[in-house]
């Protein structure tokens, strides 16, 4: 999905580099892509797709950045501000931010949509934001030069001000009239600082929006208040995807504070003066549903079917050497089946959206990763043109992928609810609705077959992945579907780059075959979940590799080092991990060590864990050591946070995470049965970042996957018992409560 920001929008934008509101200067930029400065692997998609960056300078001397990537805890607002500040001498105290509006010039240079996903924001922003800063700096110097009739080369800056050689100073904001009167434009091209001259980039910087997050003033979608706003709660079907046949809301409508009840696509919405009243009233509504035959589905049945499918030939994703022949001829073939359940995202802030629909305009306030798609779907729903839909993006209380909804499900239900009302409507999903919301990391079965050479190294690898496709029959089909194979189903278990993903496992196994089955997309909506394909392919891969290491009598870390020997970056990561984790030190009885390594979105990452297990299978994760190479480390503090967060989410999922369906109905509902990892269960996570001058690459999703196989491998190391079905607590290993 990487091609829609055209040169046209770029030129249009250049002409619009002009003064907007009085006293406010909006500086717009587009720079020609400088091939040398791009992450090599994204070269093609970047060539025509550079983002526009906006910097607004107000006469009160504040500098406002219009952020075109969504902030949901990922720290992207901070790193984007750092990039600008590296080139533009700004006063951090006077720095403001706004979410950039839904316009093509703000679309992701990598996706060509207004989408924050795939751990690529820092990479995508690295050149545009620095360029924006440099151009603004040049423009301000030019203005000050005219202001003082002094050559620009004699001027310097300090934060927020240009400084004359004689010591006089002028605020950036005070230069606005000069820029306006002389119709000054930022230069076409600027020279960016070399990495060795960076003063801000590469230094730990605290969160830009940190203050409002400790005072309660941060505005998340759920905190939006509009004049006369009312609240809605939706009665959703027990079987996801059912339609309302009829409903009875008599009792609800008699409750004080209840305004109305009506059917929408998602169910029946009750509108009331406050959310509690709406929720209470919703519980009294009786609905007759048509489940369209989906009420027979069960995850147990899916597992049976997928296991059977995994025994039959699938679509061929990769076939290096001849794994079939080599395994057929091998004396011993090892075979294991790994099973991963559905997972909900369970963001801390449940889904919600506020909408106001008038005759010719719809206004939306929402935390979203994917506002170009949201706007398209809302416009379609209302029969509007896209320009008639305005989206105000708020901060988000987490996403893990959930807020990039291809169906815009949590937005369209608010729009439907608001349609026909004269006031804004806010729909909040209860935690129960959120967990039963039907958008899940798909359930997967991986059948693994492998054989060893006479040295005990893997000689053949044959992996068959079975699970519902995320991309099939969406607008990303065919971009993310290669010969019918959803690249998300196999990302993480291929040796060679595949589709738009410019990386493989980093391992070299001479005979390597991967097949894929995408069974029917029924019952749920398969959805990206932090690290997407890797969350299942990677667990199966790294656990089975551990099995082969055991059978071949190899140290698991040494085996990975051997297999990755031709991959310099991964080799460096693994070598560093060996040292930092003290891998070769002996462990006491009842303790175990495990390792896993991955390349996700270009960045190599490896984790080593230590666990303690008691006789009944209760275990603790005592320590996690993580080494990551994400290219140039823009904000080490932010990277550390992302790694810690990724480890927690991945450990949480492998320990407890499962969404089960019986008779088409999701069984879990709240944090008692979809258990979050608790404070005291959080292991100490030590993060080591490889020093690098390579282009920055992602770190938001990288840590989520390796922790799971590393823990499973460590449990095997401690006990000799191998778990191949997850979560662990259903198979004999319980994380200490």
């Amino acid at each position, binding site marked *: 999905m990487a091609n829609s920001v055209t040169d046209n929008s770029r030129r249009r934008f250049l002409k619009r580099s002009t003064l907007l509101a009085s006293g406010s200067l909006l500086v717009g930029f587009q720079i020609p892509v400088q091939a040398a400065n791009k992450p090599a692997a994204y070269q093609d998609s970047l060539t025509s797709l550079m983002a526009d960056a906006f910097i607004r300078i107000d006469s009160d001397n504040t500098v406002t950045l219009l952020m075109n990537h969504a902030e*949901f*805890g*990922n720290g992207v607002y901070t790193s984007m501000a750092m990039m600008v500040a590296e080139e533009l001498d700004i006063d951090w*105290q006077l720095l403001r931010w706004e979410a950039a509006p839904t316009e093509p010039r703000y679309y992701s240079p990598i996706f060509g949509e207004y989408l924050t996903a795939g751990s690529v924001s820092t990479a995508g922003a690295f050149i545009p934001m620095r360029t924006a800063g440099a151009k603004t700096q040049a423009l301000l110097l030019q203005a000050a030069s005219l202001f003082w009739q002094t050559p620009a080369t004699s001027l310097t800056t300090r934060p927020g001000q240009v400084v004359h050689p004689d010591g006089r100073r002028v605020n950036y904001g005070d230069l606005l009239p000069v820029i306006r009167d002389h119709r000054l434009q930022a230069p076409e091209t600027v020279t960016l600082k070399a990495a060795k001259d960076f003063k801000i980039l590469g230094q730990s910087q*605290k*969160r830009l*929006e*940190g*203050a*409002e*997050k*400790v*005072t*309660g*003033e*941060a505005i*998340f979608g*759920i*905190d939006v*208040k509009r004049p006369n706003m009312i*609240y809605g709660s939706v009665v959703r079907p027990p079987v996801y995807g059912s339609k309302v046949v009829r409903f009875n809301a008599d009792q609800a409508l008699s409750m*004080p*504070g209840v305004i109305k009840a009506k059917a929408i696509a998602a169910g029946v919405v009750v509108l009331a*003066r*406050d*959310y*509690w*009243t709406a929720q*209470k009233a919703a519980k009294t509504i009786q609905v007759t549903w048509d489940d369209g035959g989906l009420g027979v589905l069960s995850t147990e049945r899916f597992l049976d079917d997928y296991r059977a499918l995994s025994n039959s030939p699938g679509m061929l994703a990769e076939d290096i050497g001849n794994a079939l022949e080599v395994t057929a001829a091998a004396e011993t073939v090892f075979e294991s089946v790994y099973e991963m359940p559905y997972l909900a995202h*369970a*963001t*801390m*802030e*449940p889904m919600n959206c506020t909408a106001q629909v008038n005759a010719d305009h719809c206004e939306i306030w929402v935390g979203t990763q994917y506002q170009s798609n949201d706007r398209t779907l809302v416009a379609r729903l209302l029969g509007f043109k896209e320009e008639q839909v305005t989206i105000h993006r708020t*901060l*988000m*209380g*987490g996403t*893990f992928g959930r807020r990039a909804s291809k169906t815009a499900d949590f937005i369209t239900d608010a729009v439907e609810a608001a349609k026909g009302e004269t006031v804004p409507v806010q729909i*909040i999903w209860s*935690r129960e609705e959120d967990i039963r919301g039907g958008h899940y990391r798909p359930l997967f079965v991986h059948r693994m077959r492998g054989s060893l050479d006479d040295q005990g190294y893997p000689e053949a690898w044959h992996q068959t992945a079975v699970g519902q496709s995320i991309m099939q029959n969406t607008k990303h089909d065919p971009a993310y579907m290669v010969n019918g194979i959803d690249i998300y189903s196999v990302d993480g278990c291929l040796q060679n780059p595949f589709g738009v993903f410019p990386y493989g496992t980093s391992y070299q196994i001479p005979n390597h075959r991967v097949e894929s089955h995408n069974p029917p997309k029924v019952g749920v909506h398969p959805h990206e979940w932090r690290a997407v394909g890797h969350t299942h392919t990677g667990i199966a891969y790294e656990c089975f590799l551990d099995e082969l290491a055991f059978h071949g009598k190899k140290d698991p870390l040494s085996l990975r080092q051997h297999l990755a020997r031709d991959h310099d970056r991964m080799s460096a990561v693994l070598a560093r991990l060996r040292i930092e984790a003290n891998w070769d030190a002996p462990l006491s009885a009842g303790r175990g060590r495990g390792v896993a390594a991955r390349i996700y979105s270009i960045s190599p990452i490896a984790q080593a864990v230590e666990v303690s297990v008691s006789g009944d299978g209760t275990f603790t994760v005592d320590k996690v050591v993580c080494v990551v190479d994400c290219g140039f480390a823009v904000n080490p*503090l932010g990277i550390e*946070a992302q790694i*810690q*967060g*990724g*480890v*927690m*989410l991945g450990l949480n999922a492998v320990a407890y995470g499962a969404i089960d369906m019986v008779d088409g109905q999701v069984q879990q509902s*709240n*944090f*008692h049965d979809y258990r*979050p*990892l*608790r*404070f*005291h269960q*959080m292991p*100490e*996570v030590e993060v080591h970042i490889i020093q690098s001058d390579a282009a920055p690459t992602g770190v938001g999703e990288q840590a989520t996957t390796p922790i799971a196989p590393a823990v499973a491998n460590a449990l095997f190391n401690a006990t000799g018992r191998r778990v191949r079905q997850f979560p662990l607590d259903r198979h004999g290993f319980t994380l200490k409560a």
Partner: protein
Amino acid sequence: MLKIHVNGQSHEVDASPDTPLLWILRDHLHLTGTKYGCGVSLCGACTVHVDGKATRSCAIPIAAIGNQKVRTIEDLATNAPGAEATDYHPAQAAWLAEDVAQCGYCQSGQIMAAVALLDSNPAPTDADIDSAMAGHVCRCGTYQKIRAAIHRAAKQQRGI
């Protein structure tokens, strides 16, 4: 009309008496710093102080509050944000110093719990912190930094 005392002010609200304090704060008083996470006492996102005690506002109806004094996250700092660090409550200052927040959604509840802990226990051990914070979910995984921030705030309050 129901009366309630929040952050040093009396309010009258037109709500049904079984309405949880959480929704009174959020929907009637527009004090949105207190968050909804689960609605059933499982996550701690809605934690406020009722007469100084950390309390899940989702689980206590306004009718049960009576004359007790409610304090929310909005009342902790005197002049925020952008204020000088000294205007933050020591817990907030420690949270900023440790750069705790990721998405930030759980942090109001985490901070209110930490403040209540520090009020009753000026030098909490790791085990004290574990038990005070066990009911407070963070889906972003900021636990390690929360622990560091509580230790830091405790030290600052004790003048170390």
